[in-house]
C-alpha cells in the first residue's frame, strides 16, 4: 500500500541516503535501523510529508502522496520525538484535542478508557505539566488507541517508557497489524511483536 521508490535525502551538503525503495503492505511492520544521524527521522518525516524528498516518490495505494494530501494524511498517525502535549491542559483535554485534530470526534468516556488502558488511571484530569516524562509519553501514545489511521509512523515510540508500557505498545502494534494496519517505526530498544514477521530497513 505504501510504496517508496528511489528516495534520496540530504541535509545541507551531506547525502543521508539515496536510491531507497520499499513497499509496505497491510498487516506488515517495518523497523528502520541505523546509527544516530543516518536519516531515520528524516525518512519518517518525509513519509509524513513534512519534508520534500530530493529525489524519488512516495505513493499510497498507487497515487503520489503529494497529490493525495489530506486523503493521505487521514490514513496516517505520526508520533515524533515531540509529544504534541500542552502542559496547561489535562491528559484528557490533550487527548480529546489531538483526536479532534486527527479528525476523530471522541466522547469523554472513550478518551478516559484509552487513558486508563495506557495506565494513567487517576491522572486523567491533572495538568500534564505535573506528570513524569514517561507518563507524558503515555498520554501521547494514547492516540494510538483512538485513531482509525491505517499507517502508523512512530519515531522512537519507546523512549521514557517502562517495561510494562513497552509490553503494552507491543500489544497495540499486534492488534493494529491484525486489523490489517501498517507500522513503520524506529527504536534503539529491542521490540518484538508476537506472530508477525518484523521487516527491517537499514540506513547506513
Amino acid at each position, binding site marked *: 500500500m505504501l510504496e517508496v521508490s528511489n528516495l534520496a535525502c540530504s541535509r545541507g551538503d551531506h547525502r543521508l541516503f539515496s536510491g531507497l525503495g520499499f513497499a509496505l503492505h497491510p498487516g506488515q511492520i517495518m523497523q528502520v535501523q541505523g546509527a544516530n544521524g543516518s536519516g531515520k527521522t528524516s525518512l519518517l518525516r518525509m513519509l509524513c510529508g513534512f519534508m520534500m524528498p530530493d529525489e524519488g516518490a512516495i505513493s499510497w495505494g498507487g497515487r503520489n502522496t503529494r497529490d493525495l494530501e489530506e486523503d493521505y494524511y487521514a490514513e496516517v498517525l505520526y508520533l515524533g520525538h515531540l509529544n*504534541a502535549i500542552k502542559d*496547561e491542559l489535562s491528559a484528557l483535554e490533550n487527548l480529546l484535542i489531538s483526536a479532534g*485534530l486527527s479528525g476523530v470526534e471522541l466522547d469523554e468516556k472513550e478518551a478516559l478508557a484509552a487513558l486508563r488502558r495506557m495506565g494513567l488511571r487517576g491522572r486523567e484530569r491533572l495538568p500534564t505539566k505535573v506528570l513524569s516524562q514517561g507518563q507524558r509519553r503515555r498520554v501521547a501514545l494514547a492516540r494510538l488507541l483512538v485513531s482509525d489511521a491505517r499507517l502508523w509512523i512512530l519515531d522512537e515510540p519507546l523512549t521514557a517508557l517502562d517495561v510494562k508500557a513497552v509490553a503494552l505498545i507491543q500489544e497495540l502494534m499486534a492488534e493494529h497489524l491484525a486489523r490489517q494496519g501498517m507500522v513503520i517505526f524506529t527504536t534503539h530498544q529491542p521490540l518484538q511483536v508476537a506472530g508477525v514477521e518484523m521487516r527491517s530497513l537499514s540506513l547506513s
Partner: protein
Amino acid sequence: MTVATGMKKTTLLGLLALVIRRDLVLAMRRRADVLTTLIFFVMVVSLFPLGVGPEMDMLRKMAAGVLWVAALLSSMLSLGRLFSADYLDGTLEQMMLAPQSLSMLVLGKMTAHWMVSGLPLVLMAPVLGLQFDMPVQALGVLIIGLLLGTPILSMVGAIGAALTLGLRGGGVLLSLLVLPLCIPVLIFGTGAVEAVSTGLSAVSHLSLLGALLVLALVFTPWVTAQALRISME
C-alpha cells in the same frame, strides 16, 4: 479494543470550533500573555497626553493616529506566540497531518488570536479615546474601524509569524516584515476618523477597510498554511 469503524468524524466547522476553543482555553490558562498586550496598548496610548501636554485641540487631532499606531504595535507583541508554542511542542506537526485543510486550522488560530489580542483593544479604545477628548461620533467610527482593522492585523501578521517560525531573533524580523504590510489598514482606519471629524462621511474609508478584511479572510489562511509548510522542512 476501542478502534471501531463507526468513529465520529470531525467536520470542517467542528475543527474550526475545536481550534478556537483550544486556543482560548490555553490563553485563559496563560493569562499573563494576554494582559501584557493590553497593558502595553493602554500604556503607549496614555503616554501621549502626558508627553505632548494638555492641549485639547492637538490631542483631539492626534487621537485616532495614536490609538491606531498603538494597536498596530501591541498586536505585533503577541504575534510571535501565534505558532511558536505549537511548533516547539510538536502540535504543529499534528496539525499538518490533520485530514482537513490546514488553512481552516490556521483560520481558527487567527480567529482565536484576534479574540485574545485584538478584541480587548477594541473594547478598551473608547475609554482611552476619552483621554483625548474625542467626540462621540469620531469615537464610534474609531471603534468600527478597529473592529474591521484588527482582524486584518492578526491575519497578515500570521503570515509573518509563519515565515519567521523557528528563526533566531524572529520577533524583530517579524515586525519589519509585517508593519509595512499593515500601512493601508492604518491609513484607512485613521482616515475614517479624520473624515468624520471634518464633517465628511467615513463610509468610503470603512468600506475599503471592509474590503481589505474580506481579501485577508480569503487569502491569508492559505498563504499562512503554505508558509508553515515551508517553515517545517
